[in-house]
């Protein structure tokens, strides 16, 4: 047997190259390209009255300067609204360069192209723009008030208003023994990949062809969008993602203004043009996410079972909606987590503000939804004096209830129907891992030492692997080298390794012979992109199916050549051999030779493959009727619905009694993403997600002032966690395979960050004894909450520190 590859913690194939300086990121390419730089709006809301480039055009080395007036054809039209939705009644997108009005600080107004970036920036500083300032809308409350409008034709600043419901929530709440209402809020953060965006375009005037390199999460998307904008046939445009230094969602948005303008300028100037985003640009002209105000009313019985859940929330979508309302739709559906909500209604308003636009950031609306639901679960537990884990357990969807249909539509427009998961088993594992039942003893001991500690919990379900499809293509060379291509892109997920593991396992070849290419439209033109924890599910399965096709073909050809039955053959370490009689065999490379009869002999393999070599049957064509030349296979995977991964986290925090400093003492994760291709990579994904979650819970926020200036637009002031801020993460896995796809995979990319704000809020609340309703939380904010609590402005919890519940659910609660 070939060594077990699928499921093994194989070391990554990409690492020797990346650790030795061999990576090829966007700015490593195009060393001789012209450089683009942008004049960006210093105002959050203004009319552009006049642009004077006179001084700039004289700078030595400047090649061209463009304003909106210079844009031609479809480039002068608004950027596309990528994901329309019937409830997005007032969707708005910007122009590649601002036309008359700017709607956030950082919006591009002028593009300068010069011989190098230093000079392009010199010229930018000499461009004079006159503005007439307009009233600025910052923050959800200002947007909701509607006193001032971001877009004059979007009344109330409302981009979208959506309601989804299942059951009669009013009746359920009216008849529920208990109801509580929570007002919650969660702040903005952002993806902040270490490499910003970037695009490098080469116009080839001889062939009339455009090649685009972009630090993107979707090359097929960028290719199609740019071809449409530039009025080029798709066949004349190719797009390649080189090594990409992190994405986390921001690079799935496309086309960014620069992705249209740089190729447009490259064609116009008949040359190569490159733009590499600097860090300040990334803060003020990419995208943020997370900001919501939420109001939750829940009705429940004496045992803490939810009977009705009524959620209203207001979502800050920034100045434009090019990516539609995917984020709030996900919040409204994924909020439900592993629970049965009884009757459910969710109503949201997606609102414009004069800030950077909002598009998915790892978790994509789920962290907000989970925050709402988990704060609610803790509130029910406190109201009744029941253990928090117990309340959750009483509301779980049980394994025997799978598949479970919530009666709602998910972000892909398909039913929100969970495929798998064992929530009681996950909770059980989590409680053991964190020592849930022993925590009160630990707390008592800590209190004796004058320390305040708290235990928090958060559970989530994550719809992953949404469609519509991905593809896999395999071609085996006569050397035995196996080339694999899939169209979605890679930003550090180790696809070159994980996908190679699938092929090595399915085909029976050595891992080192498998070479995977992602995100190159020359190799695979049909693809969607990398987002929604979908790469392993979608491309993994597509590649497995393609491998099965190529394997079947290889066995067919080899069986014919070896004069044995196909069923008697197996492939081991790249050699097709007879089961039990491995001396009757043929390397896959030889099968590749046989699959492709040639006329010309240009090397030894080709010599063996000429139509004049060996014996042949004059009655048969060189390529059989139903075959194609070449040992090649292709297939696509297109599911009817998303898979649903899940997980549960718990944390122990300590809050300093004097300074209110918050320290995470332990962080525990139980994670179920179905079958794991490479547990080492899955764990790495979880680690990274938790770290981003910790950043969002305790450190990161977008500090806009009332005039719409982002005050902390640098790594100096936006507090991304260093190693000193991220706790040691204890992770364990549960593997409940998805029944929906051949490999049983559910997807893992986003999981780690989803419940972290909920978990940390839960733990701080437990330590402090009063409700935590707003995240992130800094020591200063916690200190102020303590003052307000002492002043009686914030109530205490009703039942601080209830003992862990060990009775069965059908017994009466002890409260």
């Amino acid at each position: 047997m070939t060594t077990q590859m699928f499921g093994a913690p194989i070391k990554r194939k990409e690492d020797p190259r990346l650790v030795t300086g061999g990576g090829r990121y966007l700015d490593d390419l195009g060393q001789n390209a012209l450089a683009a730089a942008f004049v960006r709006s210093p105002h959050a809301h203004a009319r552009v009255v006049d642009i004077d480039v006179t001084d700039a055009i004289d700078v030595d080395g400047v090649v061209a300067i463009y304003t909106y007036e210079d844009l031609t054809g479809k480039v002068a039209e608004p950027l596309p609204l990528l994901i329309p939705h019937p409830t997005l009644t007032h969707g708005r997108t910007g122009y590649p360069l601002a036309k008359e009005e700017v709607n956030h600080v950082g919006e591009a107004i002028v593009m300068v192209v010069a011989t190098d970036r230093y000079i392009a920036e010199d010229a930018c500083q000499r461009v004079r723009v006159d503005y007439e300032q307009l009233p600025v809308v910052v923050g959800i409350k200002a947007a909701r008030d509607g006193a001032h409008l971001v877009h004059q034709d979007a009344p109330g600043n409302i981009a979208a208003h959506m309601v989804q419901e299942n059951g009669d929530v009013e009746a359920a709440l009216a008849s529920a023994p208990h109801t509580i209402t929570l007002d919650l809020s969660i702040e903005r953060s952002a993806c902040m990949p270490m490499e910003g965006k970037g695009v490098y375009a080469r116009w080839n005037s001889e062939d009339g062809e455009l090649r685009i390199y972009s630090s993107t999460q979707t090359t097929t998307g960028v290719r199609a969008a740019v071809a449409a904008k530039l009025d080029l046939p798709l066949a004349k445009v190719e797009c390649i993602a080189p090594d990409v230094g992190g994405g986390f969602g921001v690079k799935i948005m496309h086309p960014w203004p620069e992705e249209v303008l740089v190729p447009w300028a490259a064609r116009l100037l008949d040359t190569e043009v490159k733009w590499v985003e600097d860090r300040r640009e990334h803060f003020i002209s990419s995208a943020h996410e997370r900001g919501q105000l939420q109001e939750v009313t829940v009705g429940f019985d004496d045992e803490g079972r939810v009977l009705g859940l009524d959620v209203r929330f207001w979502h800050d979508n920034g100045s434009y909606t090019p990516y539609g309302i995917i984020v709030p739709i996900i919040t409204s559906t994924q909020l439900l987590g592993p629970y049965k909500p009884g009757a459910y209604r969710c109503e949201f308003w997606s609102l414009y503000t004069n800030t950077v636009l909002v598009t998915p950031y790892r978790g994509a609306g789920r962290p907000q939804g989970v925050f709402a639901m988990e704060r609610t679960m803790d509130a029910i537990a406190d109201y009744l004096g029941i253990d928090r884990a117990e309340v959750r357990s009483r509301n779980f969807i049980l394994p025997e209830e799978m598949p479970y249909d919530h009666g709602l539509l998910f972000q892909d427009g398909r039913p929100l129907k969970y495929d798998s998961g064992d929530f009681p088993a996950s909770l059980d594992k989590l409680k053991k891992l964190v020592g849930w039942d022993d925590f009160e003893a630990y707390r008592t001991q800590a209190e004796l030492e004058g320390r305040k500690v708290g235990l928090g919990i958060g559970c989530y379900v994550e719809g992953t692997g949404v469609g519509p499809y991905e593809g896999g293509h395999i071609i085996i060379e006569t050397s035995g080298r196996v080339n694999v291509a899939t169209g979605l892109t890679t930003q550090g997920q180790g696809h070159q390794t994980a996908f190679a593991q699938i092929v090595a396992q399915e085909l029976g070849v050595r891992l080192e012979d498998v070479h995977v290419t992602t995100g190159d439209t020359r190799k695979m033109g049909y693809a969607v992109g990398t987002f929604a924890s979908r790469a392993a599910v979608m491309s993994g399965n597509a590649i497995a199916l393609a491998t099965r096709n190529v394997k079947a073909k290889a066995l067919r050809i080899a069986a014919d050549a070896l004069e044995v039955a196909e069923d008697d053959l197996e492939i081991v370490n790249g050699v097709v051999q007879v089961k039990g009689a491995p001396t009757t065999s043929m390397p896959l490379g030889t099968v590749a030779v046989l699959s492709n009869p040639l006329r010309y002999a240009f090397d030894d393999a080709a010599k063996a493959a000429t139509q004049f070599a060996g014996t042949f049957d004059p009655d048969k064509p060189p390529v059989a009727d139903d075959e194609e030349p070449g040992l090649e296979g292709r297939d696509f995977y297109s599911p009817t619905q998303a898979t649903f991964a899940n997980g549960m986290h718990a944390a122990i925090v300590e809050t300093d009694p004097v300074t209110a400093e918050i320290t995470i003492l332990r962080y525990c994760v139980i994670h179920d993403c179905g079958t794991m291709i490479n547990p080492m990579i899955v764990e790495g994904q979880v680690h990274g997600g938790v770290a981003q979650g910790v950043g969002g819970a305790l450190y990161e926020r977008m500090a806009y002032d009332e005039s719409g200036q982002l005050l902390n637009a640098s790594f100096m002031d936006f507090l991304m966690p260093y190693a000193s801020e991220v706790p040691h993460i204890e992770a364990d896995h549960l593997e409940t395979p998805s029944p929906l796809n051949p490999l049983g995979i559910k997807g893992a990319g986003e999981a780690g960050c989803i419940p972290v704000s909920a978990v940390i809020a839960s733990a701080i609340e437990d330590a402090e004894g009063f409700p935590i309703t707003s995240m992130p939380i800094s020591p200063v904010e916690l200190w102020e909450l303590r003052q307000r609590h002492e002043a009686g402005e914030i109530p205490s919890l009703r039942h601080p520190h209830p003992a862990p519940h060990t009775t069965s659910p059908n017994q009466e609660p002890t409260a």
Partner: protein
Amino acid sequence: MSDMTTDQATEQLHHVTVHVNGVPRSASVPARRLLSDFLRHDLALTGTHVGCEHGVCGACTVLVDGQPMRSCLMFAVTAQDHQVTTVEGLCSAPDARPCATGERMNPVQQAFAECHGLQCGFCTPGFLTTITAYLDENPSPSEEEAREAISGNLCRCTGYQNIVKSVLRAAEIRTERQAENDSDAAGDAQVEAAARHTPSVNGKERA
């Protein structure tokens, strides 16, 4: 990139020679040319990455005379006549060894590959140079010291868990290779001693 403006006139260029990875490298550059841009764009050593341009993230860290420095905070002209080591240069360290695919890796590079210490790889060169210099000063750090040692570099992918592991593993590999070098040196000395008595043995070939 730089925010500095310049006069209309063509900028004065300065001839700069920097010893990069043991080799003197020269270029004529303006005074404001950042060392990071000099390495990446004038010398085409693109292994050094720029993540924030103001010395916070550490991705651009190189060793200047053996000390970690943020190359985005230095001008190329100030590196004149100094020794600069980039991530590419770590591969030719005496304790670098070839891996299965042929790349030579020093103990820190090897440890990152073994421990899944990187995901997208963009911040990695800055960690590698930082840790290489750190282990020269503290060859056997505790886990806490390892975490402290990397606390000046930002990574957005890994949550640092496996980078801490990589530091500890790198220390082990470093010790192992040190021992190999010592025994090789001892072996060489023996061979040389033997060679003095029996001239037919070729010490160099054995090494």
